[in-house]
């Protein structure tokens, strides 16, 4: 029997470490430690319900487990063979407990390719990876295929880059293989800068060997003997697991000199990011790895020709690599049978925001937004109204209810005014103000613009200032035109992808939520009630009993009134802190 405990960042923050310790202690206490193994795995995906504990082989899926539940879990399930009903997932509609994850709405529509091992194996044990066909793809490539044949398999599979751009991976490898050089490099982009996305982190935490194996295969294909992983310093757990995995692969002779008795040598080292979004862009990433400021440079030359240390370099995303070994194991045709005509395979998304089932999901390309949000995601939190879903992070756009039936793939998302991006998907409800959302992303790009080119450095600042003005209630109709004009200039004239896509959140909210902009500009109102400057606090005279609680608690003395008399808020002094509403026991204060 096996007990799988989720060791992803989310569940670890909710004490899954202690759960593992308690389980081990409790099993030992019952002299069961030889019969039941406790394994800490990577992310199961269902973060909303974490910490998750799965009992194998009977596939029982316990949710929201706490260290205090361990005793009962062992006594009931392990010893007496009875499921602990109160820890099972409850079907939100029927209120029935569900014990097998296969029958949960969250998992039913998912197909796990890149995440195939996450939540199944102990990422710190190479044997478990090998037991699930690990490193057989590398063995096959080295033993049976020429580099060109291996590249052809990737080309045939139709795999496209999962880091955002969607460039065909096989073609990238082929291009790089054609350049002659004494040294070439394989780089893994694990910078994952999109705020609110955690796909790459989960792959590295849950299945680091799949990335290592794929990088070695890539090295064989293009003729490189050195691999580098550029990983954010903010991901200590992923770094730790990756280090362990590299060391184990070296010990097993799967990295190093003459791998598996072939003439092919390959090794991997780590480079750390230091908190700069633009370093996710491949040329900036390369400069950062060389020890410089992470500023992008003009392409061409592409990294395929002149990358790290001016040598031919392949840069691929973590998830792109995670797909590679399966393609060799199950065949290019199998992979190409999943997905849509131009986008093959699956895509991992980090579903977050105002959605019931926050988590990591993997669906075939072509799944509709509706399926993702309402079936897998379980709909909007607190039965609120769905308003928009943001994909592609700061480079992407907002999609609305009219896009719900759009099948998700690279080209459809771009046609709808957003983009795939790396896989962040943030769901918003009726309480979110779309103007404030656009401003939020601009705030991000202003912060992260490296400053090298002026359209991006100055232009994004101006965009943000205009949005600030609108949010404060000082906007005019000309400002809206200005937003559009400036956006198109920034898009056309910025040096790198950061600037070229920075106006997207503004443009897509202008396209889809013009009414909200108009409400801010013309009526000086925020329909979602989120923009502070546009709120007005008012006393409802009928409800006010004159208890003076509000006046006593107002930090700026904006409220006046005698005892037992109706009070009055001076809006010119009010700072809209909300202290009065909190104190009023008679619902006598409202926000307009």
């Amino acid at each position: 029997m096996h007990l799988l405990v989720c060791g992803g960042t989310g569940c670890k923050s909710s004490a899954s470490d202690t759960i593992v310790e308690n389980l081990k202690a409790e099993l030992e206490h019952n002299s069961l430690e030889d019969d039941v193994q406790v394994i800490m795995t990577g992310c199961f995906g269902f973060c909303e319900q974490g910490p998750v504990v799965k009992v194998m082989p009977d596939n029982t899926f316990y949710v929201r487990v706490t260290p205090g539940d361990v005793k009962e879990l062992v006594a009931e399930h392990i010893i007496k063979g009875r499921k602990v009903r109160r820890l099972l997932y409850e079907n939100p509609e029927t209120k029935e407990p569900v014990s097998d994850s296969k029958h949960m709405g969250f998992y039913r529509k998912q197909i796990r390719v890149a995440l195939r091992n996450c939540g199944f194996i102990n990422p710190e044990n190479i044997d478990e990876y090998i037991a699930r066909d690990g490193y057989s793809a590398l063995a096959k490539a080295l033993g049976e295929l020429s580099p060109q044949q291996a590249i052809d398999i990737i080309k045939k599979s139709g795999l496209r880059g999962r880091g955002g751009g969607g460039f065909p991976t096989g073609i990238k490898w082929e291009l790089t293989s054609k350049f002659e050089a004494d040294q070439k490099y394989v780089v893994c982009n694990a910078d994952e800068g999109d705020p609110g996305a955690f796909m790459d982190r989960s792959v590295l935490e849950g299945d680091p060997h799949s990335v290592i194996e794929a990088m070695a295969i890539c090295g064989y294909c293009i003729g490189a003997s050195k691999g580098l992983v550029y990983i954010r310093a903010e991901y200590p757990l992923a770094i730790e697991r990756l280090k362990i995995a590299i060391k184990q692969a070296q010990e097993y002779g799967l990295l190093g000199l003459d791998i598996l008795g072939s003439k092919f040598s390959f090794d991997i080292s780590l480079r750390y990011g230091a908190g700069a979004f633009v370093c996710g862009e491949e040329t900036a990433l390369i400069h950062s790895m060389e020890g410089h400021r992470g500023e992008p440079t003009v392409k061409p030359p592409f990294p395929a020709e002149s990358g790290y240390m001016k040598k031919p370099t392949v840069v691929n995303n973590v998830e792109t690599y995670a797909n590679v070994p399966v393609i060799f194991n199950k065949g290019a045709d199998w992979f190409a049978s999943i997905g849509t005509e131009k986008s093959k395979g699956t895509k991992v998304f980090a579903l977050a925001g105002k959605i019931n089932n926050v988590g990591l999901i993997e669906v075939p390309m072509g799944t509709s937004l509706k399926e993702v949000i309402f079936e897998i995601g379980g709909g909007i939190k607190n039965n609120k109204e769905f308003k928009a879903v943001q994909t592609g992070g700061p480079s992407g756009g907002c999609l609305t209810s009219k896009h719900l039936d759009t099948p998700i793939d690279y080209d459809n998302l771009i046609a709808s005014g957003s983009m795939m991006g790396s896989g962040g998907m943030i769901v918003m409800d009726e309480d979110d103000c779309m103007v404030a959302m656009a401003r939020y992303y601009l705030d991000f790009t202003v912060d992260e613009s490296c400053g090298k080119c002026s359209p991006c450095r100055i232009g994004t600042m101006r965009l943000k200032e205009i949005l600030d003005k609108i949010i404060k209630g000082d906007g005019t109709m000309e400002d809206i035109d200005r937003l559009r004009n400036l956006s198109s200039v920034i898009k056309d004239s910025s040096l790198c992808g950061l600037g070229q896509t920075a106006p997207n959140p503004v443009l897509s909210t202008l396209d889809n939520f013009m009414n909200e902009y108009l409400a801010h500009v013309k009526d000086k109102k925020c329909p979602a009630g989120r923009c502070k400057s546009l709120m007005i606090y008012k006393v409802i005279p009928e409800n006010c009993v004159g208890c003076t609680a509000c006046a006593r608690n107002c930090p700026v003395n904006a409220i006046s009134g005698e005892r037992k008399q109706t009070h009055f808020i001076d809006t010119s002094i009010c700072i809209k802190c909300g202290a009065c509403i909190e104190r009023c026991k008679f619902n006598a204060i409202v926000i307009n």
Partner: protein
Amino acid sequence: MSSIKVELKQCEIDKIKEICQSFNNEPGELINVLHKAQGHFGYLPAEVQEEIALELKISVAKVYGVVTFYSFFTMLPKGLHPISICTGTACYVRGAEKVLDEFKRILNIQVGDTTKDGRFSLSCLRCVGACGLAPVVMIGEKVYGRVSPDGVKDILNEYS
């Protein structure tokens, strides 16, 4: 970026030398050197940067340029308990701003500052990868999930 003056002791200079040597004094390893140095000193005052420049045989301007480019590096010491509020998108839509305001109010400092007694410092970061627990706050290595403005006081009380 403001900074404070420090005087390096001989042992500290030796430590910097040792860090640089562990990367073979390779200028290309500058970022790794800075990571290690910040890990040791807690921050990167100008004097440490000068010493690193000397060791790696590059200009101080180059080191300073890199330090100020990356938000991970800081030239100011952090508090004993560094507080980081996640302002990634998932946390933002679930109310991170209000949580941040509450921290600012209680501690009476702005983002980037340290309290006078040196106990707490406040900063923002973008996504710690625990979006399921949004809004998320980190104090030191510890992650707090589903934080509400009302819960801020209790969290701070754990450190008093």
